[in-house]
Structure formats: C-alpha cells, structure tokens
C-alpha cells in the first residue's frame, strides 16, 4: 500500500515538468554578469531588483531569476538607473508595461485594498471572537472566584 502511494506521489511530482505551456526566449542570450561602475550603484541595483518580481517565473524576484526575460529586464533596469531615473520612475516604467504584478509591494488601490487590509481585518475578527468568548465565560470565573473563602 505504502509503495503504491509512493509511486503515485513520484508520478505526481513529474507532472509539472510534462506541461511546458509557455516558452522562454532564446537559449543563446548573453549570460554575462552585469558590470557595475561602483559599489553604491551595485547596492542600489540589488535593493531595487529584490523588490521586483520576475514576470516569467512568478515566485522569484528579478534579482534571483534566471529566465531570459529577467536577464533582459535587469539590463534595462541598470540602463534606466544610469539614465538618472529614480527607483519610483523605474518601477513605474515596469508597471506600465507589465502591470502591477511586477511589484512585490503593490500600491494601495481599489483592486488591492483587501490584500493590504485583509490580515488586519482577520486579526480584528479573531480578536472580537476571542473577546466575545471570554466575556461569555466571565460568569463561570465569577463562580469559581466566589468560593474564595474556602480554606485549602
């Protein structure tokens, strides 16, 4: 039985590899690392790239991804930095083209309010629930407290 289960799991694990729905660009792009002018530029670039999401492998940042589109976007980000654009301008550039999705911290908008407020909302609901339950229990505690005169 366990063996069957193991076999099934192994088979399942191969599924994603069998579904290449969407292709990456060219295998021949230059994978040469970016050349930075100075340490400040490098620090700024890495900080910025960490905040941007790769559009191809969506669970990686632009800094981490090896997808070719990420490579190209990294070059683009560095170019824009050298043209004297601010971090906000570079983010805008990417959002205009690839959508809000590229930001790991999306802006607060009508479509994203639940994302931002959600956790606080859940905490509030949980807090209220706990409060209500605790309030309800109070009489029992009172009963326990009332026989304080008992000698131990």
């Amino acid at each position: 039985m366990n063996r069957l289960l193991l076999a099934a799991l192994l088979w399942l694990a191969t599924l994603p590899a069998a579904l290449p729905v969407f292709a990456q660009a060219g295998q021949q792009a230059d994978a040469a690392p970016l050349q930075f002018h100075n340490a400040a530029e490098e620090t700024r670039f890495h900080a910025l790239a960490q905040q941007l999401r790769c559009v191809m492998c969506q669970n990686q940042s632009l800094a981490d991804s090896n997808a070719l589109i990420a490579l190209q976007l990294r070059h683009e980000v560095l170019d824009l930095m050298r043209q004297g654009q601010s971090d906000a301008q570079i983010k805008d550039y990417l959002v205009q083209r690839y959508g809000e999705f590229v930001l790991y911290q999306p802006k607060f908008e009508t479509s994203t309010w639940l994302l931002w407020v959600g956790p606080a909302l859940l905490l509030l609901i949980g807090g209220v629930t706990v409060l209500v339950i605790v309030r309800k229990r109070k009489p029992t505690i009172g009963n326990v407290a009332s026989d304080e005169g008992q000698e131990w």
Partner: protein
Amino acid sequence: MKASRWLPLAAFAVLAVLLAAGVWMSRNPDRDALPSALLNKPAPAFRLPVLHDPSYQVSLADLKGNPFLLNVWGSWCVECRVEHPVLTRFAETKRLRVVGYNWKDEPADALRWLEQFGNPYMVVLSDVEGRTALNWGIYGAPETFLVDAHGIIRWKHVGPLTDAIIQQQLLPQLRRIEAAR
C-alpha cells in the same frame, strides 16, 4: 448555548467554501498568464525591420487604419510550432491581418522556420534585441495582441492560440471593435 456548538462547524464550512473557490479559480491552465497592462491603451509605437527584407521598416502608423493581430513567435519556441497550424487556419480565413513579431531570434533561423512550416503572416517584423518587446510587455512566446484600427490594444492572449480561443475570445472581441467603429 446550542448555537455556539455549531460555530466550529460553520467556521469550517466557510473555510471549506473558501478553499474550494481557490481550487475552482485555479482550474484555468493559463492561470499564470499575466493580464496585459496595456489593455485598452494605445499600442506602443515601434519601427522595426521586416524579416524578409531588413532594408524596409514598418511602424505602428503603417498598420493603423484597420485592426490587426500581432503574433509574437520565435523559431526557438516549441509552443509556437503547436500554435502554427491554428494560426495558419485563422489567417487563411482572411478575417484579419496577421502580423508576425519575430522575437529574439536569428533572422536566418526564423526564415528557415517559415520555409519549413509555411508563412501565415502578412508581414513579419524582426526584433532581434527584444527592446521593443519590453514596451509591449512581452515576456514569452507565443503571445498574441489584437490591435484595433486606432492602434489601441483590445485583447491579448498569452500562450498558444487554439481554435476554441479564437472562436470564444478573439472573434467576439473583433466583432465588438467593428461594431464600435
């Protein structure tokens, strides 16, 4: 007191519905595809050489006036080969101009690819560096854009086109554009 006994069950039911909704919403195989940020916005201007004769350049202004389909492909792209017969069938109906966008490809490879499988495109633009593609928000191939007569992007599909997608999404969108003119 009775009501509170049912509370955990109710909470579980709500959670179960929520999770089921999540599973239901992720049934779409294209769920990773990003919606285009350029939808209903003017297509980015470009000027690109023609694959078959790089001395000619085509710009967005040259294509305006009637709707057209922009299909991003590359000879390195396996899924484009899957899409190719579908696209060819659609192009042969002459319903719409189909413009090819050869992305990050060696022109020689691209020409050989078209030689081998047939050329469904009215004209093929060549973007070897892929810089113009960034303006279009292109991040993979195949991708297909429907641009209206005024140069506004009306529809985008990420991944290979199928007959069903053409029938259920592209053609209704095209009819809407034509009705609005």
